[in-house]
């Protein structure tokens, strides 16, 4: 536990001193602004909620999070510090978790910097604060899942491009299998109902959409948290084997 905190602090310090975080935050704020206001016509709709904003989150993260996660281990490999790190008396999962949490904190900070949106909505009308809070919680959990997948692929390969593409594709698949048009497509295949439910149960989209309705169901949260833990654990296993490559 203590080692996780030590790694976390070092990572955060490294983020703060590098331009990448700021670029990430600026990109995130600009893109989410463009999508929400221009593409979805936030003001034109005239509804006092953040549905249009949160609706874009899964797609926006699809590009931004792999860009963060691909660097997690490749930088350590390139500079050789991975050898230093793992000849220190720490466990692999501790390093993995520390790095994951630090990157998650950065992504979450960027998300929380959109606080002006709920303030605007609050000013314009009478929004459901609970739904807005749930929207943020869902987005944070979703970003954790993307990032955990990214951690896994960053541990698997030293090539950043491969890491980005594999993370992107995996997140995309796990989104789409719960996305309306695809669910319709599966239904058209006359698959048994239990299989259909299982497929969409495994999708980020299904659980994300549930939380967006403003209901924090234990099952949805359990899904996200379990997914994150399992991905990180698998990433640690694969890193154990590939750390010296």
């Amino acid at each position, binding site marked *: 536990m*203590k*080692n996780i905190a*030590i790694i976390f602090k*070092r990572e955060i*310090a*490294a983020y703060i*001193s*590098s331009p990448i975080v700021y670029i990430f935050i600026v990109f995130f704020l600009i893109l989410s602004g463009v999508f929400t206001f221009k593409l979805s016509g936030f003001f034109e709709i005239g509804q006092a909620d953040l549905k249009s904003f949160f609706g874009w989150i899964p797609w926006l993260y699809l590009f931004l999070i792999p860009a963060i996660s691909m660097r997690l281990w490749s930088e350590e490999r390139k*500079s*050789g*510090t*991975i*050898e*230093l790190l*793992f*000849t*220190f*008396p*720490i*466990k692999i999962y501790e390093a993995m978790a520390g790095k994951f949490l630090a990157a998650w904190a950065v992504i979450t900070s960027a998300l929380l910097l959109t606080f002006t949106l709920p303030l605007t909505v609050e000013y314009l009308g009478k929004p459901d604060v609970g739904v807005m809070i749930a929207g943020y919680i869902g987005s944070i959990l979703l970003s954790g899942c993307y990032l955990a997948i990214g951690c896994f692929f960053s541990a698997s390969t030293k090539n950043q491009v491969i890491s980005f593409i594999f993370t992107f594709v995996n997140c995309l698949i796990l989104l789409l299998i719960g996305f309306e048009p695809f669910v319709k497509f599966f239904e058209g295949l006359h698959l048994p109902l239990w299989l259909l439910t299982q497929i969409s149960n495994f999708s980020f989209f299904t659980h994300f959409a549930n939380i967006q309705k403003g209901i924090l169901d234990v099952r949805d949260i359990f899904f996200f948290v379990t997914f994150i833990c399992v991905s990180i654990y698998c990433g640690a296993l694969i890193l154990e084997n590939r*750390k*010296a490559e």
Partner: protein
Amino acid sequence: MIKVENLGKYFDNIKAVDGISFEVKKGEVVGFLGPNGAGKTTTMKMLTSFISPTFGTASICGHSIIDDSLSVRKNIGYLPETVAVYSDMRVSAFLDFAAQIRGFDKNERFKKIKSVVDVTNLNSVFNQEIETLSKGYKCRLGLAQAILHDPPVLILDEPTDGLDPNQKHEVRALIRKLSTDKAIIISTHILEEVESVCSRAIIISKGAIAADSTPEKLRSQSSFAGAVDVTFKAAKIGIFELLKGLTSVSQVNQLNNQRYLLLPKSGCNLLEEVISVSTNNGLTISDITVDKGRLDQVFYEITTNS
């Protein structure tokens, strides 16, 4: 404190390390010698349990590198060949990070860092970004990190590579100072380093141990060991034959009119004989030296023959 038993590592078809065994006790500084690609770094990476061996095993302070990697790493200070340090940190932050990982609380960290910064002469760059440091400073920072927790075992992969002569001198002095209560392995291909800091030299070649002895003994295996280089005050005819006739001489080379190089038969003492034959024949010696043997010669012979 270090015990290596038939340790081996194959990378696909490359036999990087091919079954080596040796022990290192407290107080010993072992020089790991060998040409590039001999398997020095690979051996060190196995000893620090960064990579796992293909066969064989080793233990550090009684802890197996295979089953108890965490205890092994607690007992080792390691300087990797790449001198890996986080270049985005400041020297102070980096050492503090290393000290936290080693489990020291805030007060202890302050003391430990102060003391290693003093011994490794890092005071002047303490608040500098690591990125901006010269190779010599980075190397000393790597060393500082390795000795921070006062480990019983030190493994240093080419610790003086890239340092200027003064820095080399300092690092060697530091290693000598540390050696009293530690078991130390340093890899190098600088032979003078072995003579100046190591109490023992292990020469490895193509993944196997080719020699394991003290630097003095190794040196005396050189074909030049005991050779006498003698210069007489005046040139005279017949000196060559006179020297050639000595019982312990195997070969005489005339270097110029007055100067001769004599190689001994093995185990014979040439010096006394040369001096006595000179005085008996009224020859005045103006200069005479005995070769103590050359490590580079032995190194060359061992690593190219096998």
